[in-house]
């Protein structure tokens, strides 16, 4: 598997870290880094909690939230289900709801256990193979990335900094060079700043589109994503003027 992803597939772009590979189509499962040396075989993949299925592979990097991945595939399967039997139709409906709530920061204690119950019922009692394998995206991500589920539920934190409702964009005043790129690019006009004035994001206006994060020049890297911690208060107005350069010129 490592060969397929890193040699044939060219590995993870942009110097990001590999996180997991999803195999077998929507009802397959996610396999983490430490299982990457597995040969791609029917039994090996099944034992790892995934499957050969369609034979497809989706390699994911560190920016991917595994709870959101589970939510995405389960959501797909709620439409694919034929809707005849209860464990699959109703089970997936509720699994999708609970997973969505978790990614929105509305997860509650007990949600993991509830999902496990629904998964068991679907696996054991569904009429056909679709329902029996449908909980895989959840079961495999829970198996290998349980801490991500817990972080979302207890700390309201998305470790991959991916779930919109759980992250905030913040400009590090130490790093901002007031280049204005993010301010001009922000579609919500949520960034306040000017020439030589450190830029600040108005959290109430921000739609978390991520544009500022993308456009802030890499050499500054001033825009950061925060999750699970409060956004620091904006720096006081009288400290917002960038003086360093002028000092150096003196």
């Amino acid at each position, binding site marked *: 598997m490592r060969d397929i992803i890193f040699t044939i597939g060219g590995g993870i772009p942009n110097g990001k870290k590999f996180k997991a590979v999803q195999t077998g189509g929507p009802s397959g499962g996610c396999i983490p880094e430490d299982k990457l040396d597995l040969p791609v075989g029917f039994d090996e993949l099944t034992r790892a909690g995934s499957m050969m299925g369609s034979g497809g592979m989706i390699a994911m990097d560190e920016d991917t939230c595994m709870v959101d991945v589970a939510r995405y595939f389960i959501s797909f399967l*709620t*439409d694919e289900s034929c809707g005849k039997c209860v464990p699959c139709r*109703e089970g997936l*409906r509720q699994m999708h709801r609970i997973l969505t709530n978790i990614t929105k920061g509305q997860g509650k204690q007990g949600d993991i256990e509830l999902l496990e119950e*629904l998964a068991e019922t679907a696996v054991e009692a569904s*009429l056909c193979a679709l329902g029996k394998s449908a909980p895989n995206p959840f079961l495999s991500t829970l198996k290998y990335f349980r801490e991500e589920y817990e972080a979302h539920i207890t700390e309201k934190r998305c470790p991959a900094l991916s779930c919109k409702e759980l992250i905030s964009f913040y400009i590090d005043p130490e790093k901002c060079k007031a280049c204005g790129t993010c301010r001009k690019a922000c579609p919500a006009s949520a960034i306040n700043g000017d020439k030589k004035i450190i830029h600040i994001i108005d959290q109430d206006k921000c739609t978390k589109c991520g544009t500022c994060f993308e456009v802030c020049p890499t050499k500054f890297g001033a825009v950061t994503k925060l999750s699970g911690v409060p956004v620091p208060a904006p720096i006081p107005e009288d400290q917002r003027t960038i003086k360093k350069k002028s000092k150096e010129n003196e």
Partner: protein
Amino acid sequence: MNDIEFEIDGKKVTASKGMTVLETAQKEGIYIPTLCHHEKLEPFGACRVCIVEVESRGATKLVVSCVYPAEKNIIVRTRSPKVDRIRKTIIELLMAHAPDAPQLLEMAAVYGAVPNRYEKDPSFCIHCGLCVRYCAEVAKKHALGFVDRGVHKEISFIPEIAAKECHACKECFPLCPTSYLQAVFVLTEALSFPDSAVKK
């Protein structure tokens, strides 16, 4: 005689060829909960609440008893921790749709199902298919059917047929474990063939 002998909950039972495990149990007075089963209709296997454990040649598996044929020498267990857990979950899932359906309330008491465990859904149909199948198999009118799939699946009357047939029949109405069927009928009637509603 081609009687099939096997065991349900420790009791020796006999079935004749073609009988399901559920039919055998019912004949013997052994209770297995059901929602989508009806003696006049073909087995459907949709609600999965009639699930039981079957042991056959040393291997145990879960099967739905309304579909599973009686087999020589199998050992059937109508309850086990796993069976009970699955039934409880199924009942809870359906109570999200039909919280007051008497049949569900009865089963909830037996299996300790907790209402409100899952977020409510504003549709009362539990998709048992009794109405659809009764109309197709017994009344032979095909006046209603399922539409769409997955979580979007719903029952729907076919107004052209329903307008002609249903008033004189209404045989499927009492089969519905929730009040949904009648509600849909009244709605269909009001929207699609209000004249006949007035006439009646």
